[in-house]
């Protein structure tokens, strides 16, 4: 097995009496789409928040590309290539779609203490942003304020912004949330096209999408990782079936 790009070691996070992350050790391999699934309240969002650096774990470690990043801030993790998208659409509403992605390109283009040249006329920022938006099918919407885009366009923009930082690994938090079936299908195609180009940790409720996209799955229940493996292996797992179909199956 190749060395994991992202790994957690006995990660643990409590909120009062609730153990949201309970000794979770997962390994994300380079190039794979790894889905984390689980019922509501299983601790998926808490896990992603710790991976992204928005929450500090109580104990355990997070390793990225072989280095311990547990103590790093969110911004520093992004700079190392660990980027995230948000469950709730989180864009710069007043800025145009192109500005949004250009800003994301700028984030990975060294420091921004440049006070003179116009950023909006800088081909080093605009061209990669235009290319990305074209690949994701938003070419016709470059100048539209992000706040005026449709829900699914905003979600697509969100993906473009994450990719613009040229990450090695992307944490995608429910990219299909709230999408109409038609838009959802198109998004799945776009994500499938990314396979192999970038490693993805995917949190998603839509099981059809998960099984279509994921190389491997980890199932989280009450903060514990109860199973990890290929879709077939996980589907056949007894503990997973109990968790998903309830105790009446016993």
């Amino acid at each position, binding site marked *: 097995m190749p060395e994991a790009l992202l790994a957690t070691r006995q990660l643990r996070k409590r909120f009062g009496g609730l153990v949201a992350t309970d000794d979770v050790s997962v390994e994300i391999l380079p190039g794979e789409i790894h889905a984390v699934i689980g019922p509501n309240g299983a601790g998926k969002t808490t896990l992603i928040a710790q991976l992204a650096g928005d929450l500090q774990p109580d104990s355990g470690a997070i390793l990225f590309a072989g280095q311990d990043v547990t103590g790093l801030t969110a*911004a520093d993790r992004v700079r190392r290539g660990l980027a995230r998208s948000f469950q709730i659409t989180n864009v710069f509403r007043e800025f145009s779609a192109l500005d949004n992605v*250009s800003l994301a390109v700028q984030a990975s283009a060294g420091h*921004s203490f440049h006070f*003179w*040249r116009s950023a909006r006329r800088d081909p080093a920022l605009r061209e990669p942003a235009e290319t990305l938006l074209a690949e994701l099918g938003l070419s016709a919407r470059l100048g539209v304020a992000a706040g005026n885009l449709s829900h699914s366009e905003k979600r697509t923009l969100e993906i473009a912004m994450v990719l613009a930082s040229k990450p090695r690994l992307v944490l995608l938090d429910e990219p299909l949330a709230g999408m109409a079936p038609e838009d959802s299908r198109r998004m799945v195609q776009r994500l499938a096209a990314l396979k192999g180009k970038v490693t993805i940790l995917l949190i998603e409720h839509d099981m059809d999408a998960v099984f279509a996209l994921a190389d491997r799955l980890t199932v989280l229940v009450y903060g514990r990782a109860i199973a990890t493996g290929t879709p077939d292996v996980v589907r056949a797992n007894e503990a997973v079936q109990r968790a998903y179909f309830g105790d009446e199956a016993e």
Partner: protein
Amino acid sequence: MTAPRIRLVVTLAVLAGLALLPPVSAALGQDFYVDLFTRIMIFAIAAVSLDLILGFGGMVSFGHAAYLGIGSYAVGILAYYHIDNGYLQFGTAIAASALIALFIGWVSLRTSGVYFIMITLAFGQMIYFLGESVNQFGGDNGLNIERHSDFAAFLSLDRPVTLYYFVFAWLALCLGLGWRLVESRFGMVIRGAKSNETRMVALGFHTFRYKLVAFVIAGAMAGVAGALLANLTLFLSPSIMHWTRSGEIMMMVILGGMGTLIGPVLGAIAYLVLENALSGFTEHWQAILGPFLVLVVIFSKTGLLGAAGAWRTKSTHA
């Protein structure tokens, strides 16, 4: 016309108007306007500097008059010790206000929202009371400044018209620098931080550093306004640092149009011209100015400039 084009046209028109004001007022025999508009342009510089952090960066600093005071005291204190060299005085004003902005910003920018407003207000008042308590430099009675800043043979600020154009040049410079700044990569970062700071952090920006630098630039620019004000009034008084003064500068920004560069200039003109005209009628001029400000803010969230833009759009569509 698009919004940026309207702003460009308005900016050029305002600057042209200001450039022509001294000969016109001389021809009309109303030299008084030169003094009034020197003062207006000085406050316009302060308002533009505040707008850089308030309108573009979303930092509601309620202690901006402090930097006006620091710039002013830098000139006044040096003059008190008979150091009249203008380059030295202005250099000190800029350096001192930048340094104090660095400290205040470094502490305040760890907070946000109401806490940021309160903490900048508190720092502003601290500096105000400091000015009031140092009796060596006049305390709350103030202190006369004997001479204008001395730029040797280059120019003499003793003539009101020369001082006017000196202030005008600074205003044009600040607008030009501000324009480059907000369009630059740096500007995009502080505007992004205003729009959605969490997202900026998730993109990998260390927003604190950029906001702090913006805060320092704004402080330094307001320090220049203070140094100019000392040259206009030839008088030092802690009252220019009082928190109500910070409120006035903020009002100019909001009145003219936040998040634009020419907006605060329009705001300063409107505010001070109205204050001047109304105080000629009645000593209760604030009773008229207050409701006027409320109306502008209610009817145009983007201030006078926004109102002008809306009217322009309507008339071209008609």
